[in-house]
């Protein structure tokens, strides 16, 4: 949670660090930090959910076992609200609150990809600031999701989605 808060603070700082016209480098790092704020929040909660918190070595390994592209796949599926049959038979359809968090993750993941790798894509300060705000709101919404069972199921999906297809 501290890392998420620090990354959000860093993302906001980078939005304002340049006087006048902002440097693309600052805006790109800001967008990237916003994505990672949400990413690390979900990973930290996921590791806690997997009940390995008291096994530090395993916890470290699990932190690295979450796969960005797999998490994104899960996020898009939940954001669309229609779960595949094999999952729908086990989980309820995602609530509007969870869909919004998943949508934010999916959008931030794509923005981060462009921020880190696409030199032809330019960000404006306002555009970057909407991504940072989206990450902050999604992190708060995630913590306040009223249905914790749904939230916990989502964390398991983030971790094991592709194995669930077998």
């Amino acid at each position, binding site marked *: 949670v501290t890392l998420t808060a620090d990354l959000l603070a860093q993302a906001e700082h980078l939005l304002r660090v340049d006087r006048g016209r902002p440097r693309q480098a600052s805006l790109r790092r800001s967008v990237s930090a916003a994505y990672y704020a949400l990413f690390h929040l979900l990973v930290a909660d996921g590791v806690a959910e997997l009940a390995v918190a008291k096994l530090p070595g395993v916890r470290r390994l699990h932190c690295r076992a979450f796969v960005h592209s797999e998490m994104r796949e899960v996020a*898009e599926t939940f954001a669309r609200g229609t779960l595949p049959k094999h999952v729908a038979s086990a989980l309820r359809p995602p609530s509007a609150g969870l869909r919004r968090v998943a949508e934010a993750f*999916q959008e931030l993941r794509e923005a981060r990809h462009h921020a880190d790798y696409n030199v032809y894509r330019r960000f404006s300060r*306002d555009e970057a600031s*909407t991504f940072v705000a989206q990450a902050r709101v999604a992190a708060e919404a995630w913590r306040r999701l009223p249905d914790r069972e749904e939230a916990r199921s989502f964390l398991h999906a983030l971790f094991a989605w592709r194995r669930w297809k077998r």
Partner: protein
Amino acid sequence: MTDLDTIERALGAVSFPDFLVRTRPEIDIDSLGREAVWVSLIVRDGPLPTPAQLGDVRDAVRAALQAAGVELWAYFRVRTRTEDRSMSRGRKRRTRS
């Protein structure tokens, strides 16, 4: 394959809030290599809309696209009108040089 006209027609039928000056959709490939639609939300100058207001716009766009049978995932870019003009001029300059 989805054509841009379908998307523009779908968005043209949506009643958006006043802060949204216009929408500009583009079809492109996302980082997973899939076709997707990017919708630039050009908002009026001044304070940015709140995340909740932008969330409502995103919902409205997604609903309109779904109703039009567009299955592409929609990504969003938010820019003020002045920023958008400024960045468009920059793009043209870079293209010419």
